Protein backbone atom coordinates (compact mmCIF):
# COMPACT_ATOMS: atom_id res chain seq x y z
CA UNK A 1 0.00 0.00 0.00
CA UNK A 2 2.67 2.46 1.09
CA UNK A 3 4.85 1.43 -1.81
CA UNK A 4 1.96 2.02 -4.14
CA UNK A 5 1.41 5.50 -2.79
CA UNK A 6 5.06 6.41 -2.94
CA UNK A 7 5.13 5.24 -6.53
CA UNK A 8 2.13 7.40 -7.37
CA UNK A 9 3.71 10.35 -5.62
CA UNK A 10 6.97 9.91 -7.49
CA UNK A 11 5.12 9.64 -10.77
CA UNK A 12 3.70 13.12 -10.18
CA UNK A 13 7.14 14.72 -10.03
CA UNK A 14 8.02 14.56 -13.74
CA UNK A 15 4.54 15.84 -14.52
CA UNK A 16 5.06 18.80 -12.21
CA UNK A 17 8.44 19.53 -13.75
CA UNK A 18 6.99 19.28 -17.24
CA UNK A 19 4.21 21.57 -16.19
CA UNK A 20 6.64 24.15 -14.89
CA UNK A 21 8.52 24.03 -18.20
CA UNK A 22 5.31 24.52 -20.19
CA UNK A 23 4.19 27.42 -18.03
CA UNK A 24 7.65 28.93 -18.02
CA UNK A 25 7.61 28.77 -21.80
CA UNK A 26 4.13 30.29 -21.78
CA UNK A 27 5.41 33.54 -20.34
CA UNK A 28 9.02 33.60 -21.47
CA UNK A 29 8.39 32.55 -25.01
CA UNK A 30 5.50 34.89 -25.61
CA UNK A 31 5.61 35.82 -29.29
CA UNK A 32 7.58 39.03 -29.75
CA UNK A 33 9.16 40.87 -26.83
CA UNK A 34 7.75 39.12 -23.79
CA UNK A 35 7.81 42.20 -21.63
CA UNK A 36 6.00 44.27 -24.22
CA UNK A 37 3.50 41.47 -24.62
CA UNK A 38 3.13 41.10 -20.87
CA UNK A 39 2.55 44.75 -20.26
CA UNK A 40 0.66 45.67 -23.39
CA UNK A 41 -0.92 49.06 -22.97
CA UNK A 42 0.35 49.25 -19.39
CA UNK A 43 3.97 49.53 -20.54
CA UNK A 44 5.96 52.28 -18.84
CA UNK A 45 9.74 52.41 -18.65
CA UNK A 46 9.67 51.75 -14.89
CA UNK A 47 7.31 48.82 -15.19
CA UNK A 48 9.31 47.36 -18.08
CA UNK A 49 12.46 47.51 -16.00
CA UNK A 50 10.68 46.03 -13.01
CA UNK A 51 9.32 43.09 -15.02
CA UNK A 52 12.70 42.49 -16.61
CA UNK A 53 14.09 42.33 -13.13
CA UNK A 54 11.30 40.10 -11.83
CA UNK A 55 11.66 37.63 -14.68
CA UNK A 56 15.42 37.90 -14.86
CA UNK A 57 15.18 38.35 -18.59
CA UNK A 58 18.76 39.48 -18.97
CA UNK A 59 20.08 36.07 -17.98
CA UNK A 60 20.29 32.96 -20.17
CA UNK A 61 17.05 31.04 -20.57
CA UNK A 62 18.01 28.02 -18.48
CA UNK A 63 19.08 30.26 -15.65
CA UNK A 64 15.77 32.06 -15.87
CA UNK A 65 14.03 28.72 -15.60
CA UNK A 66 16.00 27.76 -12.52
CA UNK A 67 15.10 31.08 -10.92
CA UNK A 68 11.45 30.53 -11.84
CA UNK A 69 11.53 27.05 -10.34
CA UNK A 70 13.16 28.40 -7.21
CA UNK A 71 10.42 30.99 -6.88
CA UNK A 72 7.76 28.34 -7.31
CA UNK A 73 9.32 26.09 -4.70
CA UNK A 74 9.44 28.94 -2.22
CA UNK A 75 5.76 29.56 -2.86
CA UNK A 76 6.24 32.76 -4.80
CA UNK A 77 3.86 33.01 -7.73
CA UNK A 78 4.87 36.53 -8.72
CA UNK A 79 2.91 39.73 -8.88
CA UNK A 80 0.22 41.04 -11.12
CA UNK A 81 1.66 43.51 -13.61
CA UNK A 82 -1.59 45.45 -13.54
CA UNK A 83 -2.03 46.21 -9.86
CA UNK A 84 1.21 44.86 -8.43
CA UNK A 85 -0.66 42.62 -6.00
CA UNK A 86 0.89 39.31 -5.03
CA UNK A 87 -0.77 36.44 -6.86
CA UNK A 88 -0.52 34.21 -3.81
CA UNK A 89 -2.47 36.58 -1.60
CA UNK A 90 -5.08 37.15 -4.32
CA UNK A 91 -5.49 33.39 -4.71
CA UNK A 92 -5.77 32.93 -0.96
CA UNK A 93 -8.59 35.43 -1.01
CA UNK A 94 -10.44 33.85 -3.89
CA UNK A 95 -9.76 30.16 -3.63
CA UNK A 96 -12.25 29.51 -0.84
CA UNK A 97 -15.00 30.69 -3.17
CA UNK A 98 -13.94 28.28 -5.89
CA UNK A 99 -13.57 25.41 -3.47
CA UNK A 100 -16.99 26.10 -2.00
CA UNK A 101 -18.48 26.13 -5.49
CA UNK A 102 -16.75 23.04 -6.87
CA UNK A 103 -17.31 21.21 -3.60
CA UNK A 104 -21.03 21.93 -3.71
CA UNK A 105 -21.15 20.92 -7.36
CA UNK A 106 -19.38 17.66 -6.57
CA UNK A 107 -21.72 16.94 -3.67
CA UNK A 108 -24.66 17.58 -6.00
CA UNK A 109 -23.21 15.38 -8.74
CA UNK A 110 -22.31 12.48 -6.45
CA UNK A 111 -25.32 12.78 -4.22
CA UNK A 112 -27.72 12.63 -7.13
CA UNK A 113 -25.64 10.72 -9.67
CA UNK A 114 -25.06 7.57 -7.69
CA UNK A 115 -28.69 7.03 -6.66
CA UNK A 116 -29.81 7.81 -10.22
CA UNK A 117 -27.29 5.38 -11.66
CA UNK A 118 -28.35 2.65 -9.25
CA UNK A 119 -31.99 3.32 -10.01
CA UNK A 120 -31.37 3.08 -13.73
CA UNK A 121 -29.40 -0.13 -13.32
CA UNK A 122 -32.08 -1.72 -11.17
CA UNK A 123 -34.69 -1.01 -13.84
CA UNK A 124 -32.36 -1.45 -16.81
CA UNK A 125 -34.20 -1.10 -20.11
CA UNK A 126 -37.34 0.10 -18.34
CA UNK A 127 -38.82 3.58 -18.52
CA UNK A 128 -36.97 4.80 -15.40
CA UNK A 129 -33.76 3.84 -17.16
CA UNK A 130 -34.91 5.79 -20.20
CA UNK A 131 -35.59 8.91 -18.16
CA UNK A 132 -32.22 8.68 -16.44
CA UNK A 133 -30.50 8.18 -19.81
CA UNK A 134 -32.16 11.33 -21.16
CA UNK A 135 -31.17 13.31 -18.06
CA UNK A 136 -27.55 12.29 -18.41
CA UNK A 137 -27.59 12.99 -22.15
CA UNK A 138 -28.84 16.52 -21.45
CA UNK A 139 -26.29 16.87 -18.67
CA UNK A 140 -23.32 16.27 -20.93
CA UNK A 141 -24.80 18.14 -23.90
CA UNK A 142 -25.98 21.42 -22.38
CA UNK A 143 -23.06 23.77 -21.77
CA UNK A 144 -22.66 25.25 -18.29
CA UNK A 145 -23.24 28.81 -19.45
CA UNK A 146 -26.53 27.93 -21.07
CA UNK A 147 -27.81 25.86 -18.18
CA UNK A 148 -26.60 28.58 -15.82
CA UNK A 149 -28.43 31.39 -17.56
CA UNK A 150 -31.53 29.26 -18.02
CA UNK A 151 -31.69 28.42 -14.32
CA UNK A 152 -30.99 32.02 -13.44
CA UNK A 153 -33.68 33.32 -15.78
CA UNK A 154 -36.44 31.02 -14.57
CA UNK A 155 -35.65 30.45 -10.89
CA UNK A 156 -34.16 33.82 -10.00
CA UNK A 157 -35.45 36.43 -12.40
CA UNK A 158 -38.92 35.04 -13.06
CA UNK A 159 -39.79 33.07 -9.93
CA UNK A 160 -37.44 34.91 -7.56
CA UNK A 161 -36.87 31.72 -5.58
CA UNK A 162 -33.14 32.07 -5.43
CA UNK A 163 -30.65 34.92 -5.69
CA UNK A 164 -29.26 35.61 -9.16
CA UNK A 165 -25.58 35.99 -8.48
CA UNK A 166 -22.77 36.53 -6.03
CA UNK A 167 -21.91 34.64 -2.89
CA UNK A 168 -23.97 36.64 -0.40
CA UNK A 169 -26.57 39.33 -0.32
CA UNK A 170 -24.49 42.47 -0.98
CA UNK A 171 -26.05 44.23 2.03
CA UNK A 172 -24.72 41.62 4.40
CA UNK A 173 -21.66 42.50 6.36
CA UNK A 174 -19.59 39.53 7.39
CA UNK A 175 -16.09 39.49 8.80
CA UNK A 176 -13.85 37.50 6.51
CA UNK A 177 -12.02 34.85 8.49
CA UNK A 178 -11.64 31.87 6.22
CA UNK A 179 -13.37 33.36 3.19
CA UNK A 180 -15.55 30.27 3.12
CA UNK A 181 -18.97 31.89 3.46
CA UNK A 182 -20.47 28.73 4.88
CA UNK A 183 -17.80 28.69 7.58
CA UNK A 184 -17.55 32.41 8.26
CA UNK A 185 -21.30 32.77 8.70
CA UNK A 186 -21.31 30.00 11.29
CA UNK A 187 -18.27 31.45 13.02
CA UNK A 188 -20.15 34.72 13.30
CA UNK A 189 -23.15 32.84 14.64
CA UNK A 190 -25.30 34.15 11.78
CA UNK A 191 -27.56 31.31 10.74
CA UNK A 192 -29.52 33.64 8.44
CA UNK A 193 -26.33 34.45 6.56
CA UNK A 194 -25.49 30.77 6.35
CA UNK A 195 -28.86 30.05 4.77
CA UNK A 196 -28.32 32.96 2.41
CA UNK A 197 -24.93 31.58 1.41
CA UNK A 198 -26.46 28.17 0.74
CA UNK A 199 -29.16 29.78 -1.39
CA UNK A 200 -26.50 31.55 -3.42
CA UNK A 201 -24.68 28.27 -3.90
CA UNK A 202 -27.57 26.22 -5.25
CA UNK A 203 -27.84 27.42 -8.85
CA UNK A 204 -24.13 27.69 -9.60
CA UNK A 205 -23.58 24.26 -8.09
CA UNK A 206 -26.30 22.72 -10.24
CA UNK A 207 -24.98 24.40 -13.39
CA UNK A 208 -21.43 23.33 -12.67
CA UNK A 209 -22.37 19.88 -11.40
CA UNK A 210 -24.53 18.89 -14.35
CA UNK A 211 -21.73 17.38 -16.43
CA UNK A 212 -20.19 15.34 -13.59
CA UNK A 213 -23.72 14.36 -12.61
CA UNK A 214 -24.32 12.95 -16.07
CA UNK A 215 -21.01 11.13 -16.16
CA UNK A 216 -21.26 9.74 -12.63
CA UNK A 217 -24.80 8.55 -13.35
CA UNK A 218 -23.66 6.74 -16.46
CA UNK A 219 -20.64 5.11 -14.91
CA UNK A 220 -22.59 4.06 -11.82
CA UNK A 221 -25.26 2.46 -13.97
CA UNK A 222 -22.69 0.63 -16.07
CA UNK A 223 -20.63 -0.43 -13.04
CA UNK A 224 -23.66 -1.74 -11.17
CA UNK A 225 -24.84 -3.70 -14.20
CA UNK A 226 -21.34 -5.08 -14.67
CA UNK A 227 -20.93 -6.15 -11.07
CA UNK A 228 -24.45 -7.56 -10.90
CA UNK A 229 -23.36 -10.22 -13.39
CA UNK A 230 -20.40 -11.30 -11.31
CA UNK A 231 -20.29 -14.75 -9.81
CA UNK A 232 -19.83 -13.46 -6.28
CA UNK A 233 -23.14 -11.64 -6.47
CA UNK A 234 -24.79 -14.94 -7.33
CA UNK A 235 -22.93 -16.46 -4.39
CA UNK A 236 -24.27 -13.74 -2.12
CA UNK A 237 -27.82 -14.49 -3.25
CA UNK A 238 -27.22 -18.22 -2.85
CA UNK A 239 -26.25 -17.56 0.76
CA UNK A 240 -29.73 -16.22 1.36
CA UNK A 241 -28.82 -12.57 1.86
CA UNK A 242 -31.54 -10.00 1.38
CA UNK A 243 -31.67 -8.18 -1.93
CA UNK A 244 -30.82 -4.96 -0.16
CA UNK A 245 -27.76 -6.42 1.49
CA UNK A 246 -26.62 -7.95 -1.79
CA UNK A 247 -26.99 -4.52 -3.38
CA UNK A 248 -25.36 -2.40 -0.70
CA UNK A 249 -22.56 -4.71 0.25
CA UNK A 250 -21.72 -6.96 -2.61
CA UNK A 251 -22.68 -4.90 -5.64
CA UNK A 252 -21.92 -1.36 -4.49
CA UNK A 253 -18.68 -2.08 -2.68
CA UNK A 254 -17.28 -3.27 -6.00
CA UNK A 255 -19.09 -0.81 -8.22
CA UNK A 256 -17.50 2.01 -6.22
CA UNK A 257 -14.11 1.28 -7.74
CA UNK A 258 -14.75 2.57 -11.27
CA UNK A 259 -17.04 5.27 -9.87
CA UNK A 260 -14.31 6.65 -7.61
CA UNK A 261 -11.86 6.74 -10.50
CA UNK A 262 -14.32 8.67 -12.62
CA UNK A 263 -15.13 11.08 -9.79
CA UNK A 264 -11.44 11.91 -9.58
CA UNK A 265 -11.33 12.62 -13.27
CA UNK A 266 -14.29 14.97 -12.93
CA UNK A 267 -12.39 17.32 -10.67
CA UNK A 268 -10.39 18.64 -13.62
CA UNK A 269 -13.58 19.35 -15.49
CA UNK A 270 -15.07 21.02 -12.41
CA UNK A 271 -12.13 23.39 -12.05
CA UNK A 272 -12.29 24.28 -15.72
CA UNK A 273 -16.05 24.62 -15.50
CA UNK A 274 -15.68 26.91 -12.49
CA UNK A 275 -14.08 29.48 -14.76
CA UNK A 276 -17.30 29.68 -16.76
CA UNK A 277 -19.71 29.21 -13.86
CA UNK A 278 -18.12 32.00 -11.86
CA UNK A 279 -18.45 34.27 -14.87
CA UNK A 280 -22.13 33.46 -15.28
CA UNK A 281 -22.98 33.90 -11.60
CA UNK A 282 -20.52 36.71 -10.79
CA UNK A 283 -19.04 34.37 -8.25
CA UNK A 284 -15.95 35.73 -6.59
CA UNK A 285 -13.46 32.96 -7.10
CA UNK A 286 -10.32 32.02 -8.94
CA UNK A 287 -12.22 31.40 -12.18
CA UNK A 288 -13.32 34.99 -12.40
CA UNK A 289 -9.84 36.07 -11.41
CA UNK A 290 -8.48 34.22 -14.43
CA UNK A 291 -11.07 35.64 -16.80
CA UNK A 292 -10.35 39.16 -15.55
CA UNK A 293 -6.64 38.52 -15.97
CA UNK A 294 -7.24 37.33 -19.53
CA UNK A 295 -9.20 40.44 -20.32
CA UNK A 296 -6.40 42.56 -18.81
CA UNK A 297 -3.72 40.52 -20.61
CA UNK A 298 -2.22 39.84 -17.21
CA UNK A 299 -0.26 36.78 -18.36
CA UNK A 300 1.61 36.20 -15.14
CA UNK A 301 -1.65 35.80 -13.28
CA UNK A 302 -3.00 33.46 -15.97
CA UNK A 303 0.16 31.39 -15.78
CA UNK A 304 0.18 31.12 -12.01
CA UNK A 305 -3.49 30.31 -11.78
CA UNK A 306 -3.24 27.55 -14.37
CA UNK A 307 -0.38 26.14 -12.35
CA UNK A 308 -2.43 26.15 -9.18
CA UNK A 309 -5.37 24.54 -10.94
CA UNK A 310 -3.09 21.81 -12.27
CA UNK A 311 -1.61 21.29 -8.80
CA UNK A 312 -5.05 20.83 -7.31
CA UNK A 313 -5.98 18.46 -10.10
CA UNK A 314 -2.90 16.34 -9.49
CA UNK A 315 -3.42 16.41 -5.73
CA UNK A 316 -7.02 15.32 -6.07
CA UNK A 317 -6.03 12.49 -8.35
CA UNK A 318 -3.48 11.36 -5.85
CA UNK A 319 -6.22 11.45 -3.24
CA UNK A 320 -8.43 9.40 -5.51
CA UNK A 321 -5.66 6.86 -5.93
CA UNK A 322 -5.48 6.58 -2.16
CA UNK A 323 -9.23 6.16 -1.97
CA UNK A 324 -9.12 3.57 -4.72
CA UNK A 325 -6.39 1.65 -2.98
CA UNK A 326 -8.33 1.85 0.23
CA UNK A 327 -11.46 0.46 -1.41
CA UNK A 328 -9.58 -2.20 -3.33
CA UNK A 329 -7.90 -4.76 -1.11
CA UNK A 330 -6.05 -6.18 -4.10
CA UNK A 331 -3.99 -2.99 -4.04
CA UNK A 332 -4.11 -2.37 -0.33
CA UNK A 333 -2.52 -5.71 0.45
CA UNK A 334 0.09 -6.13 -2.23
Amino acid at each position, binding site marked *: MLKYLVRRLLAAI*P*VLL*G*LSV*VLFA*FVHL*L*PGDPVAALLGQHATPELTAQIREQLGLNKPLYEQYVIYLGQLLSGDLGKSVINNRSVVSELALRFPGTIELTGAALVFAIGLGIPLGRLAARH*AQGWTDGVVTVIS*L*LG*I*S*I*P*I*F*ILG*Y*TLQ*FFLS*VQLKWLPTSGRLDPRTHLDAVTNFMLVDSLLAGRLDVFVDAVKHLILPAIALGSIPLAIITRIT*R*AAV*LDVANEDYVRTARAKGLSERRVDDRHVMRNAWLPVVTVIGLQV*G*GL*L*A*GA*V*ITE*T*VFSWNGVGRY*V*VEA*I*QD*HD*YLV*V*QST*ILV*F*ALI*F*LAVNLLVDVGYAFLNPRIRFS
Partner: protein
Amino acid sequence: MATATAPLGRPLTVTSSARVSRGLWHDALRRLLRNRPALVGLAVILVFVAAAILAPLIAPGDPLAGKLVDRIKPPGGLHPMGTDLQGRDVLTRILYGARISLLVGIVSVGLGVTMGGLIGAVAGAFGGKVDTVLMRVVDVLLAIPGILLAIGVVVWLDRGLPQIMFAVALTNAPIFARLLRGSLLALRESDYVVAARSIGASTPRILFRHMLPNALTSVIVAATLALATAIIDVAGLGFLGLGPPDPRTAEWGTMLTDATSFYRQAPWIIFFTGAAISLTAIGFNLVGDGLREALDPRLRH
Protein backbone atom coordinates in the same frame (compact mmCIF):
# COMPACT_ATOMS: atom_id res chain seq x y z
CA MET B 1 -9.56 -9.10 -37.35
CA ALA B 2 -8.94 -10.45 -40.74
CA THR B 3 -5.96 -8.34 -41.57
CA ALA B 4 -3.91 -10.90 -39.75
CA THR B 5 -4.18 -13.01 -42.83
CA ALA B 6 -2.07 -10.78 -45.02
CA PRO B 7 1.43 -11.66 -43.81
CA LEU B 8 0.82 -15.25 -44.71
CA GLY B 9 1.13 -13.91 -48.21
CA ARG B 10 -1.56 -16.05 -49.66
CA PRO B 11 -3.76 -14.28 -52.19
CA LEU B 12 -6.75 -16.12 -50.85
CA THR B 13 -6.33 -14.77 -47.35
CA VAL B 14 -5.83 -11.25 -48.62
CA THR B 15 -9.21 -11.28 -50.26
CA SER B 16 -10.77 -12.82 -47.23
CA SER B 17 -9.27 -10.05 -45.13
CA ALA B 18 -11.00 -7.44 -47.22
CA ARG B 19 -14.21 -9.33 -46.97
CA VAL B 20 -13.97 -9.60 -43.24
CA SER B 21 -13.41 -5.92 -42.63
CA ARG B 22 -16.32 -5.20 -44.86
CA GLY B 23 -18.38 -7.68 -42.90
CA LEU B 24 -17.48 -6.03 -39.61
CA TRP B 25 -18.25 -2.51 -40.82
CA HIS B 26 -21.34 -3.63 -42.62
CA ASP B 27 -22.54 -5.28 -39.50
CA ALA B 28 -21.80 -2.23 -37.36
CA LEU B 29 -23.69 -0.07 -39.82
CA ARG B 30 -26.67 -2.39 -39.62
CA ARG B 31 -26.67 -2.18 -35.84
CA LEU B 32 -26.30 1.59 -35.99
CA LEU B 33 -29.28 1.90 -38.31
CA ARG B 34 -31.37 -0.12 -35.89
CA ASN B 35 -30.47 2.22 -33.03
CA ARG B 36 -33.24 4.82 -32.89
CA PRO B 37 -31.51 7.39 -30.63
CA ALA B 38 -28.47 7.31 -32.90
CA LEU B 39 -30.66 7.94 -35.93
CA VAL B 40 -32.26 10.91 -34.19
CA GLY B 41 -28.77 12.23 -33.45
CA LEU B 42 -27.72 11.72 -37.04
CA ALA B 43 -30.79 13.60 -38.25
CA VAL B 44 -30.01 16.51 -35.92
CA ILE B 45 -26.44 16.68 -37.16
CA LEU B 46 -27.56 16.55 -40.79
CA VAL B 47 -29.97 19.40 -40.18
CA PHE B 48 -27.18 21.55 -38.77
CA VAL B 49 -24.76 20.57 -41.53
CA ALA B 50 -27.41 21.48 -44.11
CA ALA B 51 -28.03 24.77 -42.28
CA ALA B 52 -24.31 25.53 -42.33
CA ILE B 53 -23.93 24.78 -46.02
CA LEU B 54 -27.12 26.47 -47.13
CA ALA B 55 -26.92 29.47 -44.76
CA PRO B 56 -26.48 32.09 -47.50
CA LEU B 57 -29.45 30.66 -49.39
CA ILE B 58 -31.94 30.13 -46.60
CA ALA B 59 -31.05 32.80 -44.06
CA PRO B 60 -33.68 35.52 -44.00
CA GLY B 61 -31.30 38.37 -43.16
CA ASP B 62 -27.75 39.65 -43.04
CA PRO B 63 -25.64 37.98 -40.31
CA LEU B 64 -23.42 41.01 -39.68
CA ALA B 65 -25.48 44.14 -40.25
CA GLY B 66 -28.84 45.03 -38.78
CA LYS B 67 -31.15 48.00 -38.64
CA LEU B 68 -31.35 49.78 -35.33
CA VAL B 69 -35.13 50.10 -35.71
CA ASP B 70 -35.29 46.32 -35.56
CA ARG B 71 -33.32 45.95 -32.33
CA ILE B 72 -34.52 43.53 -29.63
CA LYS B 73 -37.62 42.31 -31.44
CA PRO B 74 -39.17 39.23 -29.86
CA PRO B 75 -39.66 36.14 -32.04
CA GLY B 76 -42.42 36.40 -34.63
CA GLY B 77 -43.22 37.73 -38.07
CA LEU B 78 -40.15 38.39 -40.15
CA HIS B 79 -37.86 37.25 -37.36
CA PRO B 80 -38.88 33.78 -36.21
CA MET B 81 -36.20 33.86 -33.51
CA GLY B 82 -36.29 37.59 -32.88
CA THR B 83 -33.48 40.10 -33.28
CA ASP B 84 -30.49 41.12 -31.18
CA LEU B 85 -29.21 44.41 -29.81
CA GLN B 86 -27.98 45.55 -33.21
CA GLY B 87 -31.23 44.56 -34.88
CA ARG B 88 -29.73 41.50 -36.58
CA ASP B 89 -31.91 38.48 -37.23
CA VAL B 90 -31.06 35.78 -34.64
CA LEU B 91 -32.06 32.89 -36.92
CA THR B 92 -29.68 34.16 -39.58
CA ARG B 93 -26.86 34.43 -37.12
CA ILE B 94 -27.52 30.95 -35.76
CA LEU B 95 -27.45 29.52 -39.29
CA TYR B 96 -24.17 31.25 -40.05
CA GLY B 97 -22.89 30.34 -36.59
CA ALA B 98 -23.37 26.68 -37.46
CA ARG B 99 -20.70 27.14 -40.14
CA ILE B 100 -18.10 28.30 -37.65
CA SER B 101 -19.03 25.85 -34.90
CA LEU B 102 -19.08 22.80 -37.14
CA LEU B 103 -15.99 23.83 -39.06
CA VAL B 104 -13.96 24.65 -35.96
CA GLY B 105 -15.28 21.57 -34.17
CA ILE B 106 -14.47 19.19 -36.98
CA VAL B 107 -11.08 20.68 -37.80
CA SER B 108 -9.99 20.79 -34.18
CA VAL B 109 -11.07 17.23 -33.45
CA GLY B 110 -9.45 16.08 -36.70
CA LEU B 111 -6.26 17.87 -35.74
CA GLY B 112 -6.47 16.51 -32.20
CA VAL B 113 -6.92 12.95 -33.48
CA THR B 114 -3.97 13.39 -35.82
CA MET B 115 -1.65 14.85 -33.22
CA GLY B 116 -2.76 12.56 -30.43
CA GLY B 117 -2.91 9.57 -32.74
CA LEU B 118 0.62 10.15 -33.90
CA ILE B 119 1.93 10.45 -30.35
CA GLY B 120 -0.04 7.43 -29.19
CA ALA B 121 0.89 5.34 -32.21
CA VAL B 122 4.58 6.05 -31.82
CA ALA B 123 4.44 5.45 -28.05
CA GLY B 124 2.40 2.30 -28.36
CA ALA B 125 4.37 0.89 -31.27
CA PHE B 126 7.82 1.48 -29.84
CA GLY B 127 7.22 1.21 -26.13
CA GLY B 128 10.20 1.62 -23.80
CA LYS B 129 11.77 5.04 -23.32
CA VAL B 130 9.94 6.65 -26.23
CA ASP B 131 6.70 5.59 -24.63
CA THR B 132 7.67 6.90 -21.19
CA VAL B 133 8.73 10.32 -22.44
CA LEU B 134 5.71 10.81 -24.70
CA MET B 135 3.30 9.72 -22.00
CA ARG B 136 4.80 12.17 -19.52
CA VAL B 137 4.16 14.94 -22.05
CA VAL B 138 0.60 13.71 -22.33
CA ASP B 139 0.28 13.68 -18.54
CA VAL B 140 1.38 17.30 -18.38
CA LEU B 141 -1.23 18.31 -20.93
CA LEU B 142 -3.88 16.32 -19.11
CA ALA B 143 -3.01 17.98 -15.82
CA ILE B 144 -4.26 21.31 -17.15
CA PRO B 145 -8.02 20.96 -17.04
CA GLY B 146 -9.68 21.05 -20.48
CA ILE B 147 -10.81 24.52 -21.33
CA LEU B 148 -8.09 26.15 -19.21
CA LEU B 149 -5.51 24.73 -21.58
CA ALA B 150 -7.47 26.11 -24.51
CA ILE B 151 -7.75 29.47 -22.75
CA GLY B 152 -4.00 29.51 -22.17
CA VAL B 153 -3.24 28.72 -25.79
CA VAL B 154 -5.63 31.28 -27.22
CA VAL B 155 -4.33 33.92 -24.83
CA TRP B 156 -0.80 33.03 -25.80
CA LEU B 157 -1.31 32.85 -29.56
CA ASP B 158 -3.86 35.66 -29.63
CA ARG B 159 -7.43 35.40 -30.78
CA GLY B 160 -8.40 33.95 -34.14
CA LEU B 161 -10.11 30.94 -35.62
CA PRO B 162 -6.92 28.96 -36.42
CA GLN B 163 -5.70 29.58 -32.88
CA ILE B 164 -9.00 28.34 -31.47
CA MET B 165 -8.82 25.24 -33.63
CA PHE B 166 -5.31 24.53 -32.45
CA ALA B 167 -6.21 25.20 -28.82
CA VAL B 168 -9.18 22.83 -28.83
CA ALA B 169 -7.15 20.28 -30.76
CA LEU B 170 -4.49 20.43 -28.06
CA THR B 171 -7.04 19.65 -25.36
CA ASN B 172 -8.20 16.64 -27.38
CA ALA B 173 -4.81 15.31 -28.40
CA PRO B 174 -3.81 13.74 -25.05
CA ILE B 175 -7.06 11.81 -24.90
CA PHE B 176 -6.46 10.27 -28.30
CA ALA B 177 -2.81 9.66 -27.56
CA ARG B 178 -3.77 7.59 -24.52
CA LEU B 179 -6.57 5.84 -26.33
CA LEU B 180 -4.46 4.77 -29.28
CA ARG B 181 -1.52 3.81 -27.13
CA GLY B 182 -3.76 1.72 -24.92
CA SER B 183 -5.31 -0.18 -27.80
CA LEU B 184 -1.93 -0.67 -29.43
CA LEU B 185 -0.33 -1.99 -26.25
CA ALA B 186 -3.18 -4.45 -25.85
CA LEU B 187 -2.91 -5.47 -29.47
CA ARG B 188 0.87 -5.82 -29.35
CA GLU B 189 0.41 -8.79 -27.10
CA SER B 190 -2.47 -10.31 -29.02
CA ASP B 191 -2.09 -13.60 -30.81
CA TYR B 192 -2.29 -12.39 -34.32
CA VAL B 193 0.20 -9.58 -34.03
CA VAL B 194 2.58 -12.00 -32.39
CA ALA B 195 1.85 -14.30 -35.30
CA ALA B 196 2.55 -11.56 -37.82
CA ARG B 197 5.78 -10.68 -36.03
CA SER B 198 6.89 -14.27 -35.78
CA ILE B 199 6.77 -14.63 -39.55
CA GLY B 200 8.91 -11.55 -39.88
CA ALA B 201 6.58 -8.73 -40.84
CA SER B 202 8.28 -5.36 -40.40
CA THR B 203 7.29 -2.94 -37.64
CA PRO B 204 5.70 -0.24 -39.83
CA ARG B 205 3.87 -2.93 -41.73
CA ILE B 206 2.50 -4.45 -38.57
CA LEU B 207 1.62 -1.01 -37.28
CA PHE B 208 -0.23 0.21 -40.31
CA ARG B 209 -1.73 -2.97 -41.65
CA HIS B 210 -2.61 -4.74 -38.47
CA MET B 211 -2.68 -2.57 -35.41
CA LEU B 212 -4.06 0.76 -36.55
CA PRO B 213 -7.16 -0.64 -38.23
CA ASN B 214 -7.97 -2.42 -35.02
CA ALA B 215 -7.53 0.62 -32.85
CA LEU B 216 -9.64 2.61 -35.27
CA THR B 217 -13.02 1.64 -33.90
CA SER B 218 -12.43 3.12 -30.46
CA VAL B 219 -10.94 6.25 -32.02
CA ILE B 220 -14.01 6.75 -34.19
CA VAL B 221 -16.29 6.52 -31.18
CA ALA B 222 -14.16 8.85 -29.07
CA ALA B 223 -13.83 11.35 -31.93
CA THR B 224 -17.59 11.54 -32.38
CA LEU B 225 -18.07 12.19 -28.69
CA ALA B 226 -15.19 14.69 -28.76
CA LEU B 227 -17.02 16.66 -31.45
CA ALA B 228 -19.77 17.37 -28.95
CA THR B 229 -17.26 18.60 -26.38
CA ALA B 230 -15.31 20.58 -28.96
CA ILE B 231 -18.38 22.49 -30.07
CA ILE B 232 -19.20 23.30 -26.45
CA ASP B 233 -15.59 24.34 -25.79
CA VAL B 234 -15.46 26.58 -28.84
CA ALA B 235 -18.66 28.26 -27.70
CA GLY B 236 -17.16 28.50 -24.20
CA LEU B 237 -14.11 30.30 -25.53
CA GLY B 238 -16.37 32.67 -27.43
CA PHE B 239 -18.41 33.17 -24.28
CA LEU B 240 -15.27 34.12 -22.33
CA GLY B 241 -14.43 36.70 -24.95
CA LEU B 242 -11.85 34.58 -26.73
CA GLY B 243 -13.85 33.99 -29.90
CA PRO B 244 -13.03 35.27 -33.38
CA PRO B 245 -11.34 38.68 -33.27
CA ASP B 246 -14.10 40.45 -35.19
CA PRO B 247 -16.78 40.98 -32.53
CA ARG B 248 -19.49 41.08 -35.17
CA THR B 249 -18.82 37.50 -36.28
CA ALA B 250 -21.82 35.20 -36.05
CA GLU B 251 -20.27 32.73 -33.65
CA TRP B 252 -22.51 30.99 -31.13
CA GLY B 253 -20.36 31.64 -28.06
CA THR B 254 -19.79 35.27 -28.96
CA MET B 255 -23.51 35.71 -29.60
CA LEU B 256 -24.17 34.45 -26.08
CA THR B 257 -21.76 36.91 -24.51
CA ASP B 258 -23.48 39.74 -26.33
CA ALA B 259 -26.85 38.47 -25.21
CA THR B 260 -26.02 37.99 -21.53
CA SER B 261 -25.87 41.70 -20.76
CA PHE B 262 -29.53 42.20 -21.63
CA TYR B 263 -30.97 38.73 -21.30
CA ARG B 264 -33.76 39.90 -19.02
CA GLN B 265 -35.10 42.00 -21.88
CA ALA B 266 -34.29 39.53 -24.65
CA PRO B 267 -34.08 36.02 -23.23
CA TRP B 268 -34.83 34.49 -26.63
CA ILE B 269 -31.32 35.07 -27.93
CA ILE B 270 -29.78 32.94 -25.23
CA PHE B 271 -32.61 30.45 -25.56
CA PHE B 272 -32.27 29.89 -29.31
CA THR B 273 -28.49 30.10 -29.43
CA GLY B 274 -28.23 27.81 -26.41
CA ALA B 275 -30.63 25.39 -28.05
CA ALA B 276 -28.48 25.33 -31.18
CA ILE B 277 -25.31 24.55 -29.23
CA SER B 278 -27.03 21.97 -27.04
CA LEU B 279 -28.80 20.25 -29.94
CA THR B 280 -25.58 19.91 -31.91
CA ALA B 281 -23.88 18.43 -28.86
CA ILE B 282 -26.83 16.10 -28.26
CA GLY B 283 -26.63 14.98 -31.89
CA PHE B 284 -22.96 14.08 -31.69
CA ASN B 285 -23.37 12.45 -28.29
CA LEU B 286 -26.24 10.28 -29.54
CA VAL B 287 -24.33 9.22 -32.64
CA GLY B 288 -21.20 8.58 -30.58
CA ASP B 289 -23.06 6.37 -28.12
CA GLY B 290 -24.75 4.59 -31.01
CA LEU B 291 -21.42 3.99 -32.70
CA ARG B 292 -19.98 2.62 -29.50
CA GLU B 293 -22.78 0.13 -29.19
CA ALA B 294 -22.61 -0.74 -32.87
CA LEU B 295 -18.86 -1.25 -32.95
CA ASP B 296 -18.56 -3.01 -29.64
CA PRO B 297 -21.73 -4.87 -28.82
CA ARG B 298 -20.11 -6.38 -25.76
CA LEU B 299 -20.58 -3.02 -24.08
CA ARG B 300 -24.30 -3.04 -24.66
CA HIS B 301 -26.29 -2.87 -21.47
